[in-house]
């Protein structure tokens, strides 16, 4: 049995903001199925009472002095932006018209 269906892959692509093609969906569905079946092996390990590790360095609450240090100018910060206006990143519309009105 497949670990993941073509429809589920299409859903993942939407969640991931990837406008994948129908052809890609065919390819990815098979490949993700192989990968997910392989990685599911982690379930064979008895680990019910084992605490999870998210990070190998046990550092928490790293603070610095609250002083102003040099940083990028607005021009530098915007230098790589696809579109900018009035020292801001310019984006396509976020709300649809019927919501906005």
């Amino acid at each position: 049995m497949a670990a993941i269906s073509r429809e589920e892959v299409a859903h993942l692509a939407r969640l991931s903001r990837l406008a994948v093609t129908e052809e890609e969906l065919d390819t990815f569905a098979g490949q993700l199925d192989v990968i997910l079946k392989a990685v599911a092996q982690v379930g064979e390990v008895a680990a019910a009472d084992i605490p999870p590790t998210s990070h190998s360095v046990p550092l928490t609450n790293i603070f610095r002095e609250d002083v102003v240090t040099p940083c990028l100018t607005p021009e530098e910060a915007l230098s790589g932006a696809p579109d900018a206006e009035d020292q801001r990143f310019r984006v396509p519309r976020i709300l649809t018209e019927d919501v906005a009105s």
Partner: protein
Amino acid sequence: MSDLIRMTATEIAALVAGGETSAVEVTQAHLDRIAAVDDRVHAFLHVDTEGALAAARAVDERRAAGEELGPLAGVPVAVKDVLATRGVPTTVGSKILEGWRPPYDATIVQRLRDAGTVMLGKTNMDEFAMGSSTEYSAYGPTHNPWDLSRIPGGSGGGSAAALAAYEAPLAIGSDTGGSIRQPGAVTGTVGAKPTYGGTSRYGLVAFSSSLDTPGPCARTVLDAALLHQVIGGHDPRDSTSIPQPVPDVVAAAKLGATGDLTGVRLGIVSEFVGEGAEPGVMAAFRESVDALTKMGAEVVEVSCPTFAYALPAYYLIAPSECSSNLARFDGVRFGLRVGDDGNRSLEEVMSLTREAGFGPEVKRRIMIGTYALSSGYYDAYYGQAQKVRTLITRDFTAAFERVDALISPTTPSVAFPIGARTADPYQMYLADLYTIPTNLYGGPGISVPCGLSEGLPVGLQVMAPTMADDRMYRVAAALESAVGTLTPPTL
């Protein structure tokens, strides 16, 4: 061929410091070499000729003014395209960042500049450092200088190939699951993954933040140690940076080079010397173990049973972190924007941009990560993988109570032909079978050339406890003193 390009970084630095050659002459020799061979190797995505010569002139002027120079001043270095370089294109091997010129330097790049090294350019890599062959670069593959029809490893195949092709004496890589060590192994060069947190990630384009570790690549262990010393150490701009000094890896490399390992206890990872590796790889590894024993090391086998689950755990943890990290490529602040016709919504433009800008492996990993983190699957996949990570760490800790360092082959196979594994993504993943446990644990690992199989290089991996990077340099340098450096065929 110019002698300068065959020299080690140590030799070049001595000649520059002694005034027997200039940084400009050294830099020009390497730029000439790149011009002569890189159309065949394709190690570089961008060669910064003007910047390199300007940096070299500055070193020569400082020397002429009587300034004391650092141990690597005037030595050229190639930088993996994963690190931000001010004003110099940084693509991460992806179309989504094509043409991006960062407004700042990564901490490591800044330290390279401060040390008077000369950045030649940016090296090719699998897109976003996801891959084991550099074939997933959006700009075409890099070719292994040992056999141009074969892969140079990945993701840092460009850095390793640049060393093996004598285009640079030093290079920077980054290692999330083996991307420094595995390319080192298959190109006959040295690649070291420092302790996680021992080298700054500030300015490193993130793939998997709890695993990504930048580090040194070189043709000799001592050169790698000198580079490690220059780039390593605490960085207040990286909150996961360890606030301790770098262990004296240079002294350790020099100690190892004496060829005396008396009193050093080494453990062969039982799980990594079974049926998985090619016979030729195992033969070279066994010969190296004999050499290490002759130098006085006590070698035993150590079982680390959960290492068998490192690969599946890694391919849940790394994609999960990547699916989150790569959300920043939204077509707003930097890089590509596709489909913004004035009518489409932000979400539509975002989806079209990411579809056009990311390659297939990056898309696969983003979707796997999204799956592993989604409610209903989280506990069985990402949560369980994190628990396995704890058990892998415990295996390392238990092993290091018995031995000073662990050893294994770096990779199960020698360099495979270009195209051999791209149709089967999971086959590609297996190239990192032996390198991944170290990343999950966070300790240091190094690959050092240990012989040839079928005329192609084989690497031996040394793994040490966290913040004991010096130990792996000692063992690697000792093995190097017995095996010697490997010389690829003339290009």
